[in-house]
């Protein structure tokens, strides 16, 4: 198990307790979601809320259903049961592009960039919903389309600056190093100006330094852009350090939700990570973590 050390509270954002009786309306609210694929129960009874300006993390062993939650949220999968509310709309079963247009953006576990397009085009695609011109204007180009392209290109440049990828602008993304591709995927999501950002394993396959960079970007998004996020990650150090609240899952079910500290010492979570353990070991581990 990698280092899952407790951390000092951040100086910029005050940690949130599990909101009870809630302070503000949730951005997204999931209730009783069930998802099955020909026999395999990927999700069972998943409930959670994510609030404004919150960094909500989902952890769990492989196959626990983390990515499936993202797929349900972004409309790739249609759950058999339950409700999903986002931005005040019931989005269960809505088609992905509609949900995206409501303001949900995500990155993918295995990079899903448009590999034959260059970096600028990939980011411009993030702005697709903001272009505001139709096919007719596009065929004519001069006028509306051109103005919109220039305006949106400017926004994309801001993101390029933000993510420090100036040097790669005109290169097809398929040729770029993995770490940069991950960043571009984040940039594409940011370009959507989302109300909620879903990050699926943003630091998988990165070394320590690259992980630090990514962590910094996540913090910047949180602090400067104030976009609520759901983070799925296996790097416990990162999760425990950054998240306001954590939901741990196993076999498609949430086993614990709370502050990083609470979740970390939850017996079920430890079991999920270590496998079946006897009570003595459990107590030992809990002691270690405390």
């Amino acid at each position: 198990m990698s280092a899952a050390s407790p951390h000092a509270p951040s100086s910029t954002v005050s940690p949130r307790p599990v909101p009870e009786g809630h302070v503000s309306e949730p951005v997204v609210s999931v209730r009783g979601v069930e998802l099955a694929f020909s026999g395999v129960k990927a999700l069972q009874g998943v409930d959670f809320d994510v609030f404004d300006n919150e960094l909500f993390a989902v952890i769990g062993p492989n196959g626990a259903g983390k990515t499936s939650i993202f797929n349900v949220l972004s409309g790739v999968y249609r759950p058999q049961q339950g409700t999903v509310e986002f931005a005040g709309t019931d989005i269960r079963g809505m088609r992905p592009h509609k949900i995206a247009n409501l303001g949900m953006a995500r990155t993918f576990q295995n990079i899903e960039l448009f590999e034959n397009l260059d970096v600028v085009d990939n980011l411009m695609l993030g702005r697709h919903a903001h272009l505001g011109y139709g096919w007719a204007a596009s065929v004519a180009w001069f006028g509306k389309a051109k103005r919109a392209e220039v305006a949106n290109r400017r926004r994309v440049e801001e993101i390029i600056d933000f993510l420090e990828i100036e040097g790669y602008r005109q290169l097809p993304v398929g040729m770029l190093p993995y770490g940069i591709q991950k960043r571009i995927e984040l940039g594409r999501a940011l370009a959507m100006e989302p109300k909620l950002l879903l990050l699926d394993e943003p630091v998988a396959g990165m070394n320590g330094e690259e992980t630090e960079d990514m962590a910094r970007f996540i913090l910047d998004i949180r602090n400067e852009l104030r976009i609520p996020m759901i983070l799925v990650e296996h790097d416990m150090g990162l999760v425990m350090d950054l998240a306001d609240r954590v939901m741990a899952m196993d076999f498609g079910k949430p086993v614990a939700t709370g502050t990083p500290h609470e979740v970390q010492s939850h017996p079920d979570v430890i079991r999920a990570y270590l496998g079946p353990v006897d009570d003595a070991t459990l107590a030992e581990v809990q002691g270690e973590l405390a």
Partner: protein
Amino acid sequence: MTTFLQSVLNGFAQGSIYALLALGYVMIYKATHVISFAQPALMVCGGLFAYHATSVFELPFWPALIVAIIAGALLGMLVERLALRPMVGKPVFTLAIITIGVDIVLRIFANRYMGPDPRSVPYPGGSNRLEFWGLSISHQRLGLIVVTAVTVAALAMFFRYAKTGLAMRATALNQETALAQGIRVGTMFALAWAIAGGLAAIAGTFVAATGAGMEQNTWIIALKALPAIIIGGLDSIPGAVIGGLAVGLVESITAVYQPDVAPWLGNNFALVAPYALMFLVLLVKPYGLFGTKEVERV
């Protein structure tokens, strides 16, 4: 009723030809993910090999069929080696167009050999017929049905029990990963083409043994196997057989009944009826009846 049964029987026989051809397409698809538009040429050449064997070497039908199968398989391998192998790893549609080039070139040599006149392979027993329940079928068509059944069974066994079958499919899914498992990708391609060439030769031989024989325009028959493979699913052996038979049946039944039942569909609607059937099947099953669904996950 007799009319109907007779048309079913005819469709079944004709469908056997389509099934053999469809199997050829499926073989190549299974190993390379390419639809080979060279199948028509392989069929024509196969028929001509048999013609040559019977008319020049003066062999009887069955040995001639064997000769044709072997020659067809070799030709398939040759084509793969010369035209397709240099393209390994290139987009499949580029490869498909290359097979069209192959088809054009091969058919011209075949046409050159044929000349404008039809070429025909004599079937033992010629126009003898088997009559039962008021139906009738020629010995030649009966032979076709039997040969098709045997071939299909043999292929199905091959894919079920031989590891080469699985290796072939793996090659089609991802060449690099297949290579990393130690699979000889080139051999798989060659094998697929050889089998396809052999199958096309069987079909060609029986086509040449029917009616007015093999002539320059006969190749078009091979295109009828295209809706068959879509109906059955591009990569399924049972699919190819069922698709081929379905095309044969639909064609023959439509030919008999459509002029009375739905004259507004025009003359010779039977020719495109297989495509209509294909659309219907795809509305319900986007990967055909037995095709493997592409896995898509994010």
